[in-house]
């Protein structure tokens, strides 16, 4: 099954570059990405630029409207994701728990829709 692991957290919650916690934090991401690749579970994984760089597009009556934002009312913003392929939810939970940001924010696990079924 495919799962999307959405990484949420307050943007200033994770260790800042230069702080003593930063290197272990980043190393955790490298190690997890390597593990997912070795297990054949990795489909994609990226970190996102800050939420203040986000733009929103809507199409109404054929008109494209672009806006700055969105700025969520909560401080928690999506900061990155992994798209993985594994056997079941327990395996997805085990990977999600290894995402370094799980210690600072939260990981939302969403099963990917399977149009073959």
């Amino acid at each position, binding site marked *: *099954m495919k*799962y999307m692991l959405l990484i949420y957290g307050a943007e200033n919650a994770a260790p800042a570059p230069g702080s003593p916690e930063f290197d272990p934090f980043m190393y955790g991401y490298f190690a997890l990405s390597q593990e997912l690749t070795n297990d054949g579970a990795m489909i994609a994984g990226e970190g996102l630029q800050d939420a203040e760089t986000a733009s929103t597009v809507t199409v109404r009556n054929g008109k494209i409207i672009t806006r700055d934002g969105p700025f969520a009312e909560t401080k928690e913003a999506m900061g990155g994701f992994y798209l993985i392929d594994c*056997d*079941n*939810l*327990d395996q*997805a*939970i*085990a990977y999600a728990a290894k995402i370094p940001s799980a210690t600072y924010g939260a990981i939302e*696990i969403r*099963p990917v829709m*399977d149009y*073959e*079924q």
Partner: protein
Amino acid sequence: MRNHQGRLIAALSVQFRDIDLAEDVLQDALAAALISWPKSGMPRNPEGWLYQTSKRKAIDRYRRSVTRREKMGSLAHQTQLDTMVNDEEPDEYQSIPDERLRLIFTCCHPALPTLAHTSLTLKTVCSLSTSQIAAAYLVSETAMAQRLVRAKNKIKKAGIPFIVPDADLWPERWKSVLGVVYLIFNEGYSSLDSKASIDLCEEAIRLGRILVRLLPDETEAAGLLALMLLTHARRPARLANPDVYISLEDQNRDLWEKASIMEGQNLLLTTLTKGKPQAYQIQAAISAIHCQASNYKDTDWHEISALYERLYVYEPTPVVLLNASVALSFAQSPATGLASLEFLGKSAKLETYQPYHAARADMLRRDGQNKQARQAYKRARDLSPSLQEQAYFTERLSQLGDTKAYRGSV
């Protein structure tokens, strides 16, 4: 029969990785049995017959869905079909694998809502009907059916596995399974209405027995079963008069079920030799001491007080401290108990917790502080959820000479 049905549902759910399909084909098989058995006689192994027939019904459904080009999700992907077809030889004597543990872990998975844990476990492992569970939880059958459907959908769509969890997830998941069983028990125990068509306490004890049989080395499962047996044994005395709340102190101990007490005590004694007792075993030990006493006053309150202190290590809650204070008030003096309660009342938010006021009222009365005792009894009565308990406190108030006791709250 219900025990066999639980085993069948478990074996089929695990094989198909789909509870709905398992329930549907077992219904088909039961319907086929109603037609076939009266004609050709009861098979020598009815469960084996039902198991094989259910699997054949699943294969039929699968073939039909393929011809309609509607692949059935989990079946198509799990390559179970090959093994199922190979299995198709009608070996009615083959024993059915006991997969109930896997099913229990699936039903109690933390990714499901808490309300679904108990309902789904009762539906599948205990094979209760939706209407029976709805009645036990005082919700409409429609609401219960929706809750069950949502839970089964989530299992299917989110890929919640039918497995016994690995070592790293075990402690958390195992604790949650035991918690679900105890929750079912307590829901049955706290309902004073004995007219319900099913008894949640007995269902929880049944689940406890299954867990102990499947995992004999997990001492907390045995501890939980012992606790439930020892608590349940006292129920006839508690419900002797359904209109009246009968506290442990006032219960007619001759009504306690000796066989359950014996079973619970023996189970606990065997378990205690196996290692360091944890929360359920300690609570069972407390219950066992109550069961050994011939009356409330002769209870070994020193031992109970010590056990609550040990329980606090595992369950650092105000409720445990409250019970420890009650034990202390008997082991030493009401004044000692009150001092401990006062400390507790300051550090925890117990202002709206009925048992706190009830315990305090009793200690004040025993300490001769009648005026304060009356106030505390009134507070306890106002916070009581059932009419029986309100009547109990009204009675206590009138014993303290409160002539206005019957006029309602302060």
